[in-house]
């Protein structure tokens, strides 16, 4: 009850003032921390959040955290892309059964911070090393994809963009199963999920409804001491077309021909996501190497390869880090018309980013971070951005970010 009341309160407050609610809510809840955790009754209430500010060095495009965001940041400091507030209630009904509800408020496809129930599921552990979940679930398309908004849990200000921009999917209505098999000192883990996607992806002022699109995927994971390796695969079968026609009409006053519309269809196409991750985590060192390949089924979207390398070293409460990420998409070169070619250029990405920053664990449950991203790409690299001015954009910019991540 407490949760629904809180969620309703946040929802009400949000409709009044969409931007300040994150800050205000965070402050209130921080003051009351720790909210509630009682191991005896098996009920726990936990929260996380980030107050962030970011700016870039150009007004030619807007920088977003991922393509679920309709607008981004440019030369002015803005809290839009990184600020978030999340709250989770978990109830361990019996040792085998657990019910979890998680709500988050962040800048989303409809340009509001409207809170959403991001997860709501029942979990059943018939044996300790087998976990079955059903309901509204997070998807692990890539390693760590299901904790992308929990800034406190990772080193950088936000997950490296060149790797994660393409992943606007957050949850499914479905089920997953994960099994752990210890082998000597190492541990194998396998997970599979199936479900129907939720939500919408913004495209200019329109939205691409991806709800009801079936998703299936899984991974194999191996951990030995400080090392972890994971290979994962997932695909989504889109049920609807991108809203290309209304966007073209509004932006350029051009009508999309039926031939072009058919050529650029996304309905009944399938996109495949492959990834490989390697993590080392021991003592003061943290290092990650991730690679992905995205195979787009629709002519409207270019297939791509991306990756990142990240290394951090802790010195007392301060952890400086350095990373490099890249993404390169493959042009199809088969546009049947100039208009189709124009649309296809919009899914182009070709850039590399060097990023460096520092995480400072100030007190328990609070981390401050500052980061610089130097994005060096081709002028054709448009896919990750919003509000692009194609004539002026040269593919290069710097991004400065400051965040405070907290748990409560």
């Amino acid at each position, binding site marked *: 009850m407490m949760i629904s009341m809180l969620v309703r309160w946040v929802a009400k407050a949000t409709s009044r003032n969409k931007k300040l609610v994150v800050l205000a809510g965070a402050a209130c809840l921080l003051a009351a921390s720790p909210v509630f955790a009682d*191991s005896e009754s098996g009920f*726990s209430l*936990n929260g*996380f959040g980030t107050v962030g500010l970011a700016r870039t060095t150009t007004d030619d495009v807007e920088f977003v955290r991922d393509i679920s965001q309709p607008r981004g940041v440019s030369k002015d400091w803005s809290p839009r892309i990184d600020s978030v507030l*999340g709250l*989770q209630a*978990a109830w*361990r009904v019996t040792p085998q059964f*657990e019910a*979890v509800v*998680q709500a988050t408020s962040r800048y989303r496809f409809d340009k509001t911070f409207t809170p959403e129930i991001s*997860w709501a*599921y029942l*979990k059943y552990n018939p*044996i*300790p*090393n087998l*976990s079955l*979940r059903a309901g509204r*679930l*997070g998807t*692990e398309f890539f390693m*760590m994809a*299901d*904790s992308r*908004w*929990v800034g*406190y*849990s*990772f080193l950088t200000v936000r997950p490296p963009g060149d790797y994660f921009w393409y992943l606007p999917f957050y949850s499914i209505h479905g089920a997953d199963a*994960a099994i*752990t098999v*210890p082998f000597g*000192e*190492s*541990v194998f*883990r396998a997970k599979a999920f199936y479900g129907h996607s939720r939500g919408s992806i913004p495209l200019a002022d329109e939205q691409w409804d991806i709800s009801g699109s079936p998703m299936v995927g899984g991974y194999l994971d191996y*951990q*030995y*001491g*400080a090392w972890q390796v994971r290979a994962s695969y997932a695909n989504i079968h889109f049920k609807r077309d991108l809203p290309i026609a209304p966007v073209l009409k509004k932006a350029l006053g051009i009508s999309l021909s039926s031939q072009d519309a058919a050529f650029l269809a996304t309905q009944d196409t399938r996109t495949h996501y492959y990834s490989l991750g390697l993590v080392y985590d*021991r*003592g*003061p060192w943290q290092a990650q190497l991730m690679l992905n390949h995205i195979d787009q089924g629709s002519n409207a979207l270019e297939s791509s390869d991306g990756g990142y390398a990240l290394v951090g070293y*802790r010195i007392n*409460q301060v952890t400086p880090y350095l990373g490099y990420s890249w993404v390169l998409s493959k042009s199809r070169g088969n546009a049947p018309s100039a208009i189709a070619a124009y649309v296809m250029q919009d899914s182009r990405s070709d850039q590399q980013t060097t990023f460096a920053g520092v995480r400072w*664990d100030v007190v*328990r*449950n609070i*981390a401050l971070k500052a980061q610089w991203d130097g994005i060096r790409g081709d002028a054709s690299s448009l896919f990750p951005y919003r509000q692009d001015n194609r004539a002026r954009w040269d593919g290069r910019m710097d991004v400065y970010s400051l965040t405070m991540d907290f*748990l409560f």
Partner: protein
Amino acid sequence: MPFRRLILLGSIFWLLLQPAAEVRAELVVVVNARSGVAAMTRNEVINIFFGRNRQFFNGLEAQPVDLADSHPDRRRFYSMLVGKDLSDINAYWSRQVFSGRMQPPPKVNSTEEVLKWLVSHPGGIGFVDLSKADARVRVVYELTP
């Protein structure tokens, strides 16, 4: 001679800098004496305390118990086990909790409560000072810096 006195002073200073024997007391990982677990390796201990593996080799469910942050043994335990600061451990568990994978082990406030937990849970596993490990529990791993 001033030189010899300097050496003497230096030696005393060096001895003073050495942590006292009590402070350096050994931490050990202990289990319920009837769990059937006799010894574990460092990696097996890591797997259990980080929730990667929830069962002992004999199939028994592992029921780890942790100490509250305010207890000095907690900092020492994770520092010796994986070389990590408590905020790293905190970050790790926030990822597990908010991704919906799992909840962290319950925390108690004292070594005596750890021992009580171990006695009342067949798969109980915790860490205590070697001097506190009594007949109710079995030492399965000794932490060395």
